[in-house]
């Protein structure tokens, strides 16, 4: 595939701007690729109608793109690419121009369509949540280089470097150095256990997800075998389904702690002395 010029590869693209031909109606847009490949007229018609049905645009065949809503235009763009039955379909931020509600609906629909047609979708997005929910495998790119490839859960749970850790999802970062095997000394001197493959003495950044942190009022409360760090609540943000606490721990920096808003959850006020608790498996020490 790689040796053929781009317009001869069995790859089609859904453009970010859709790039629908404004002077052609829906079916002419969708049938463009087939006509260019000199596919038989009746077959073109059949496959165009099939694909228009697939993306649920039946009845709009003769509309011009200008007379369609954003979501409908998106479907035409998808149909126009899918009708060619490419080996790989490239989608360049296909849902970027849609509002949140429509984007969520289209995400599910795209996933269903992908399951139906069984074509590999290469889906470019800056929306990390979209990437996590829609992908089987994610490739994270930084400055044109692929920095990590793997299943969504691997990318989220064990980012291989600081860029991936900061790019995908929320993350707490605390500078420190390796104190011994599986042990990290934070700038303020606290020792915690974390996953690492760096040698003692290496300066690292401790990373841990906000939702994997717990808050307690006293050192005696957390279960044994966990990391505990004392701190003070310096900010509280209410998100509706959760609360976020910023907990300062002196010279070591601060943790952002997300606590689900469930009945019986203890609320903390700014200035409260708290203990931040997390499982050693939840934290990773990543070298620069």
């Amino acid at each position, binding site marked *: 595939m790689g040796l053929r010029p781009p*317009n*001869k590869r069995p790859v089609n*693209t859904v453009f970010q701007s859709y790039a*629908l*031909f*404004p*002077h052609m109606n829906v079916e002419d847009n969708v049938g*463009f690729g087939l006509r260019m*490949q000199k596919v038989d007229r009746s077959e073109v018609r059949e496959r165009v109608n099939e694909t228009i049905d697939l993306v649920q645009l039946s009845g709009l065949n003769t509309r011009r793109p200008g007379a369609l809503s954003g979501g409908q235009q998106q479907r035409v763009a998808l149909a126009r*690419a899918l009708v060619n039955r490419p080996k790989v379909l490239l989608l360049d931020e296909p849902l970027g121009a849609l509002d949140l509600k429509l984007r969520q609906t289209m995400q599910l629909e795209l996933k269903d369509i992908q399951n139906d047609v069984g074509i590999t979708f290469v889906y470019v997005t800056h929306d990390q949540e979209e990437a996590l929910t829609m992908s089987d495998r994610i490739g994270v790119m930084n400055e044109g280089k692929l920095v990590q490839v793997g299943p969504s859960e691997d990318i989220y749970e064990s980012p291989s470097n600081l860029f991936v850790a900061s790019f995908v999802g929320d993350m707490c970062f605390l500078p420190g150095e390796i104190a011994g095997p599986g042990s990290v000394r934070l700038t303020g001197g606290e020792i915690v256990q974390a996953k690492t493959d760096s040698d003692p003495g290496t300066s690292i950044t401790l990373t841990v997800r906000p939702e994997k942190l717990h808050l307690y009022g006293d050192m005696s409360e957390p279960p044994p075998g966990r990391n505990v760090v004392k701190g003070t609540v310096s900010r509280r943000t209410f998100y509706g389904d959760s609360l976020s606490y910023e907990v300062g721990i002196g010279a070591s920096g601060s943790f952002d702690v997300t606590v689900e808003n469930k009945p019986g959850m203890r609320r903390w006020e700014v200035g409260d002395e708290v203990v931040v608790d997390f499982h050693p498996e939840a934290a990773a020490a990543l070298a620069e």
Partner: protein
Amino acid sequence: MLSGESSTVEAANPRLERSAQRRESWRGFLHAVPAYVYLVVFFMLPLIIVFVFSFASRGRTGKPVLEGWNVDSWARLSEPLVRTITTRSVVIAILNTVFCLVIGYLFAYWIATRRKQSTRNFLLILVLIPFWSNFLVRTYAWRMLLDADGYITQLGELTGLWSRLLFTETAVFIGLLYGYLPFMVLPLYAAIERIDWSLVEAGRDLYASGAMAFRKITLPLSRPGIIAGSILVFIPSLGAYVTPDILGGAKTTLLGNFIVTQFGAARNWPFGSAVSGAILIVMLLATIVYFRTGGRTI
């Protein structure tokens, strides 16, 4: 109390809106009054006068007489001389439009696809510069170039391809092409520059060759420019007067010169008026047909 108030407001709304609309359209009309007055006095009225004169008769000294109304002048339009001149004019106007379109499209496309805005502006200014000098002066410049000792004639004689071109149909054609090319380039540039090139990219992604992508995407999307440019070139080419007069000599009479002769040397105002009126009516009909057949859509 409150509900009563809101209901009166609702009831008053449509009336308010209508009166606001009326005021809006009245204000719009006021804005347009100077233009209306100008067009009626300096455009409509003279045209009506021309039209009226075409039914007048010619006095013994050639002075138009506003009595003895007849359609003789209109009947004369079928004379062989008129037909020859009309055919020649139409052919030259069509050829000029086609040549302007081909050359203008290539040039406009080239300008519109330059990456830097400053480069595009510079090239556009090159197109516009001739506009800033007098048309007569430029036409006389061509006369010198095409005359016996002109550079273009010398070049032709050197290569053995042509001799003196002045006072031939070719000279008129060259002059018209030169004169009206900018009218083609500018609307084409405006249309091509607006094209979203990701559409061409999409076409290429959908297996179109470069030529196919041009034919199916770029060309249809530049249609507004093609139409506007063609109208802007064809209409004045058909009625051209200065260029054929200076570069064509007495040999190549076009409609414009013919009309001038009728009003001048021939002293036959009614006939000149009839020829003018006929051209106007044909043009008007053509324009109406064009707009009726959906010329306004992309």
